[in-house]
């Protein structure tokens, strides 16, 4: 069993000026984010996944229950900066999270707030920009970049703070397919380097690439498991109104016509491979 980085214990959150007081945005959520994992949070708009994201690093403090980041409760106002140093966040709208007029100045913003020495900041900024592949753009003005590039700058801004965990709060929702792929690849790369990733999304194709998926519906987590188990659990899919990823749909259709295809097929690569095997065993190819 791996160590836990973020621990949610019976967490509920109700917005203060919400008309439906009895209807919390997040309801009795228990969750352990494990160190080094890639966790996807899947759910529809209004399922509470964005509220959940804001609870992870203390932007919101639970109405009841407790969120602990490496043992520090987010309700401890004195230690909130310690939490933010451990858990960073990339938001949905790329335009609204860039503060400076030059890419490298923006990446430096976080480390500057930490009060680091200038040489150390410089080093971290250059490292971070290289990691996300934006080093050549360091002297660009942010508004001249594409959506995917802006999000990568935002990611660099977080990793320059050397956080252990990054929350992606629907960071791909406003991007085109190319931008989405850029952000997903960057997230996967960071995960390989040991950073814990919590990826909040409503794109199935992205969720299937995670180690685990937590499915949210109506403020609750109704299932948390490997992508394979989640997408083979009809009850969870129906309850959350989630469809299979497109490649899995094709695999299912083929399977239903009596051809044996593994039910773990979720991505395009897996599907092509499975069909290839099926064709081979049918003797169509050698």
């Amino acid at each position, binding site marked *: 069993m791996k160590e836990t980085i973020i621990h949610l214990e019976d967490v509920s959150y109700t917005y203060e000026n919400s008309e439906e007081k009895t209807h919390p945005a997040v309801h009795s959520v228990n969750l352990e984010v494990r160190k080094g994992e890639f966790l996807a949070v899947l759910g529809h708009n209004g399922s509470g996944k964005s509220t959940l994201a*804001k609870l992870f*690093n203390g*932007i919101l403090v639970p109405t009841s229950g407790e969120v602990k980041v490496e043992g520090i409760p987010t309700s401890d106002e004195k230690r909130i*900066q310690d939490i*933010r*140093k451990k858990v*960073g*966040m990339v*938001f949905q*709208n790329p*335009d*609204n*999270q*860039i*503060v*400076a*007029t*030059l890419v*490298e*100045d923006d990446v*430096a*913003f*976080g*480390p*500057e*707030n*930490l*009060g*680091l*020495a*200038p040489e150390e*900041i*410089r080093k971290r*900024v250059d490292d971070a920009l290289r990691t996300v592949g934006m080093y050549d753009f360091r*002297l660009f*003005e*942010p*508004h001249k970049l594409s959506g995917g590039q802006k999000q990568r700058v935002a990611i660099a*801004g*977080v990793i320059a*703070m050397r956080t252990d965990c990054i929350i992606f709060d629907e960071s791909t929702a406003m991007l085109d397919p190319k931008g989405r792929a850029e952000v997903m690849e960057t997230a996967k790369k960071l995960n390989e380097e040991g950073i814990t990733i919590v990826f909040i999304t409503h794109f199935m194709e992205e969720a299937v690439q995670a180690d685990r998926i937590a499915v949210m519906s109506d403020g609750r987590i109704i299932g948390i498991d490997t992508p394979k188990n989640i997408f083979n659990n009809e009850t969870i899919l129906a309850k959350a109104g989630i469809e299979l990823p497109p490649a899995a749909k094709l695999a299912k259709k083929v399977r239903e016509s009596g051809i044996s295809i593994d039910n773990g097929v979720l991505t395009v690569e897996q599907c092509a491979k499975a069909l290839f095997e099926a064709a081979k065993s049918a003797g169509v190819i050698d």
Partner: protein
Amino acid sequence: MRDITIGQYLSGNSFMHRMDARVKVLLTVVFVVSVFLCKNFWSLLTMVLFVAVFILLSKVPVMTVLKSIKPLAFILLFTAILNIFYVSGGNVLFEWKFIKITDKGLYTAVFMAIRILCLVTFSSLLTYTTTPTALTDAIEKLLSPLKIFKIQVHSLAMMMTLALRFIPTLIEEIDRIMNAQKARGADLETGGFIKRAKALIPILIPLFVSSFRRAYDLAFAMECRCYTGEGRTRMKQMKCGPRDAVASVLAAILIAAVILLNHFFEKLI
């Protein structure tokens, strides 16, 4: 809307680019004061020379510099005309009914126009060669003595940075909203004052709504990156070097020249 070049930065590595931003800001202040000290064409000529030297030192193409003057063409023309007609004294060159043009009026008009040109050119050189971040940092440093009067210098500087950062974003947004309303048949071009003011509502309201949303998002994002406004360090340290010494000497010579020339030659104004 999109032709606005004020505050635009052109990346480069020239003498002026590498100068300390604080010195550049101070230099601009000295320059502005000197321009107003000028009393005759000789001292004004020194100013023009000074500007020319700094255009060379900044390696900004002359065409680009001239472009920054374009939006001010109207103001230039207006002040010139005003001076031609309203300055009296000197020899009359032309008279027709109530219009009287004197040589003094003409000189003053030209003098004023050159003054404005000098001011605009030099301050745009400042923004062309200084990143907005460096500029606000410099202003923050220069104003830091005001802290003893409990003025939140840092917050002011931060607000300036954010404003500069969001200008292009908001211009794009205005463009987008205008197009969307035009596509719904909104008429933004014709009608009298009241009608036009009314036509702005469909643009201003969405703009406000989205600006508030952006501000809200931005505040969260800044908090997440540990911003408290206190205990900040800077990646880019400002250092005075030999270049700044050279520029300061030039500025000193400039002031001396202006005072001397004012003294030895006849005063125009």
